[in-house]
């Protein structure tokens, strides 16, 4: 049993500031436990978003001592507890109140990404033959819990606010999962180049560093997508072939 101080952001989009709360902490506590204790004992209306408290739903994203984290998976024993622990909301999204941000932009972005389109089934009963090695690559992307910490830390969104032009690392991973899905026949490369800003990412890998699911976002998702887009759009030979093919196809 020890006393610790937490410096928590309180306020809405217009006014606000940090407020210190001192509470008792116990063995094994995570940051979300501390927030809940503050909420129960000192600030009933402290706004925080959370669900599973087990690192599986991706709801309790915030910045702890300046680092984008899931509060439920950040243990106090891994933080310097001799000084106040700073807890503040994500910065890449509009603030609703206290630790809660408006992440609805992410949901709108996803709606605009072309849905999964499977090839014809392999068997008469409507099933496909898919081998483990066909799915292993995509499984990494499908681990994503949509915590949006990668979006929070991406400078294109966080600092340059290019939300209208760039879909961000989360949705690069989503597109990669669809493009590399063994059954998918959709083609999202042209949209990725023209409307979704694949070129904006300059591979600083900040997103990869903060991913709580350890998805190798930049190397395994974004770079291969960039390569596919480049191969398609800028390879002179491919371009020539496309022109020839187009001319050869009856209208």
């Amino acid at each position, binding site marked *: 049993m020890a006393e610790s101080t937490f410096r928590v952001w309180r306020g809405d989009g217009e006014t606000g500031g940090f407020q210190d709360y001192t509470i008792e902490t116990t063995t094994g506590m995570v940051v979300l436990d501390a927030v809940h204790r503050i909420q129960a004992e000192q600030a009933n209306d402290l706004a925080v978003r959370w669900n*599973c408290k087990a690192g599986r739903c991706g709801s309790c994203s915030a910045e702890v001592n300046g680092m984008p984290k899931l509060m439920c998976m950040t243990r106090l024993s891994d933080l310097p507890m001799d000084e106040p622990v700073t807890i503040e909301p994500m910065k890449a999204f509009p603030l609703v109140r206290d630790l809660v941000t408006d992440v609805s932009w992410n949901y709108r972005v996803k709606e605009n990404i072309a849905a999964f389109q499977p090839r014809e089934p392999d068997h008469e009963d409507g099933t496909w033959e898919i081998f483990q090695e066909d799915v292993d690559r995509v499984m990494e992307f499908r681990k994503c819990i949509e915590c949006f910490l990668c979006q929070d830390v991406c400078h294109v969104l966080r600092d340059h606010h290019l939300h209208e032009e760039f879909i961000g690392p989360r949705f690069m991973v989503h597109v990669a999962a669809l493009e590399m899905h063994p059954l998918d026949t959709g083609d999202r490369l042209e949209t990725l180049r023209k409307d979704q800003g694949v070129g904006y990412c300059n591979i600083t890998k900040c997103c990869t560093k903060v991913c709580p699911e350890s998805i190798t976002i930049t190397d395994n998702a974004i770079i291969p997508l960039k390569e596919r887009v480049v191969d398609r759009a800028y390879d002179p030979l491919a371009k020539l072939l496309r022109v020839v093919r187009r001319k050869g196809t009856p209208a």
Partner: protein
Amino acid sequence: MAEFERHEHDVLVVGAGGAGLRAAIEAAAAGASVGLVCKSLLGKAHTVMAEGGVAAALSNVDERDSWEVHFADTMRGGQYLNDWRMAELHAQESPDRVRELEAWGALMDRTPDGRILQRNFGGHAYPRLAHVGDRTGLEMIRTLQDHGIHQGMDVFMECTVTRLLLDGDRVAGAFAYDRERGRFQVFGAKAVVLATGGIGKAYQITSNSWEYTGDGHALAYHAGAELMDMEFIQFHPTGMVWPPSVRGILVTEGVRGEGGVLRNSEGRRFMFDDIPDLYKDQTADSPEEGWRYVIGDRDARRPPELLTRDHVARCIVREVKEGRGSPHGGAFLDIAWIAEKMSDAPAHIRRKLPGMYHQFKALADIDITKEPMEVGPTTHYVMGGVRVDADTQMSNVPGLFAAGECAAGLHGANRLGGNSLSDLLVFGKRAGEYAARFASENAAPPLDPEQVAAAERHSLAPFANDGVEGPYQVQEDLQKLMQNQVGIVRTEDDLASALEDIEALKERAANVAVTGNREYNPGWHTALDLDCLLTVSEAATRAAIGRRESRGAHSRVDYPAKDPDWGRYNLVLWKDADGNMKSRREPVRKLPGRLTRIIEEQG
């Protein structure tokens, strides 16, 4: 009603976990206009936490499996209190529902010949659970979410329904608030599907998230629907017990499916000490036979760790009570031991149970490939819920449907692991289909301004109170009460005094005062959730008092044996004209001969 945001839909689905999403997809496919209300952000519902897999007799791993075997397993697991028709539909339709997920983009672990892999689980005769490592729920909810958002439904995120609106006896819509701004939303609908999940937050130690406050159960009950089987609450045998802040977080049954064993402080595999008669013929005699089962020997029988959850939980409680527990009051769950049997055990464990590996490493400093975990029971699931028609999922309130955990019938006295995800798919689809049909056959009912005004007054009451009672204190006291007195092992005295205490808590809840304003105010939300929690707590307690026997998840110290007479009844609860909770014994529907024969053939 100008001051409210108004929405009109053919079908309103309340809850966006597996059942709600599946219902919404089906209703939209039938041409209905669909509103989908979720208490959290889309894709965060409790389904995301499901780990082990979805049960379906695909027969990909063992061709002896069939819907008939799955049906018989489900009935045996539920101690024959299940609604036979739901168990039949579930077993027959779940393979198609799983294959359909694949057509919508889900990717599950594969067999060597390129089909969906299936794993062993408690109470299932053959490897039956389609899965993705230990994150099956995430794969399922993301697949439904990503498919659903392209089907043209209106999604209302972070929106909580506090009242159903009625037109006479029929459902007419719902009253809700949005978390972000606290604005009131009035939904008019021809049909409403409740898919709100469970009631775990009525307990102190639970694997459930904050949302699980019994909303659908309570909404339906107050709208005149009947609840059934509320005495049957599943305490999952393996939750984390240490450190204190993670107590209750789920440790998947998949650990035992992959060969994990339970030991007490003396190192003894105590599950061999007590094997129920109903399962004697199906359970291994020796650790050696148990291991052969795990690695796929078709002649071997299941290790006793894979007995049903109710039984395993009670055995752990017994070991702790008799002084053979682990240091923090649980038992040891050991998967690391399989290193004796396989050379690449650590890599195998990390591949099959990546979430568990990460969870223990990050939260408890335990490397499960090297050391045992400490586990103990955690409130996990409620078998009871809204009483519905098996085929259509409609309650006794016309136009009001329920599916998934908030509906009763499929699981009887105890649910088998893996049968919840398949439940969501099978009956989510059916609820959506029949709700859309109901909507097409019935005109939009009028909304009663009086009911809307009353719902608003009810929602705003905590701001008007000037008492000192805070919402969190009442919630915590209720959780302690339910944990200690309506828990795994029950007695008449405890239950009777619990009922009195619940009445006292109701009075305290009515006086709860909240501070701040309506914008994203968790204190206010907790105050409103209390109503639902108190309703379902009362229901669980009354039903537990009523059933004077021990069966499945309901265990009475004063009536320790199964009573054949009680085996012929479900307990049904409803609200009478004076607002009191009433109960009656409802005969279990008699099985048709074809299903009796299946059960007999399966031994």
